[in-house]
């Protein structure tokens, strides 16, 4: 049994944890208002990309064909407009008495968090199972 499965699972785990990080950052800043719509916090989302593992020539065709790990190719900021709110008592308000709230959709973030956590659990389960099988293979014939 090859150790490649751990690379695959590890890449999945780190990608999902980046996603959880962005969710946490978005939720933490959901109420970080600003007086300027251009400087207000924007919701961040990771972009995932499948990476075909580089294999040497001696690897079999099947080895070359399988083995796509995942990586975070970038973090994009949401382009949705920030929410304008009339709040003249706020020290950050502009000359019209408006403040701008981030374009973070809390419900979307919560569902994203659940999805990321499920995917993370899937990967952990795959890793545990592969580890058990590998240990069983090591004990082969005893």
């Amino acid at each position, binding site marked *: 049994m090859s150790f490649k499965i751990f690379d695959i699972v590890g890449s999945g785990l780190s990608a999902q944890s980046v996603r959880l990080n962005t969710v946490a950052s978005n939720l933490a800043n959901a109420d970080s208002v600003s007086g300027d719509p251009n400087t207000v916090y924007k919701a961040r989302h990771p972009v*995932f990309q499948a990476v075909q593992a580089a294999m040497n020539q001696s690897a079999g065709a099947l080895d070359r064909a399988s083995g796509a790990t*995942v990586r975070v190719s970038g973090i994009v900021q949401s382009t949705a407009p920030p929410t304008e709110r009339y709040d003249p008592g706020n020290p950050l308000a502009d000359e019209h008495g408006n403040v701008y709230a981030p374009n973070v959709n809390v419900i979307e973030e919560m569902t994203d968090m659940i999805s990321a956590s499920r995917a993370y659990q899937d990967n952990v389960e795959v890793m545990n199972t592969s580890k058990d099988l590998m240990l069983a*293979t090591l004990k*082969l014939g005893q």
Partner: protein
Amino acid sequence: MALNLDTYLGVHADALKLQSKRMDVLADNLANVDTPNYKARDLDFRTALAAAGSPDAAVPLKTTDSRHIALDPTTDASAALKYRVPLAPALDGNTVDAQQEQAAFADSTVRYQATLTFLTSRIKDLMTAITGS
């Protein structure tokens, strides 16, 4: 009497290798569960095992240039690697169904363990024959 260990272990050695490759492919799918445009794949075990069992059946490709990549017929089971027919593809082009992949992974795990059991019993038989007890 000469004992060929490969023949003695039979199909199980190949099966073990292929099940672990299948698990690699399924782990790929689960790791890329949220990657846009990723297409889920699976290993057609029967085809792969047939390819592993009969290396002569594959037609060898002639390489006429040093830059050509030689096709190793003994390890060419890539024909068995197929895209899954999606039940409900996501709007971002991803065709991974996490539940389906989990079920396939569980299936592969059990089969791997079954193969391990077969191999263990074969080795135990051999040990019995060697020690004579």
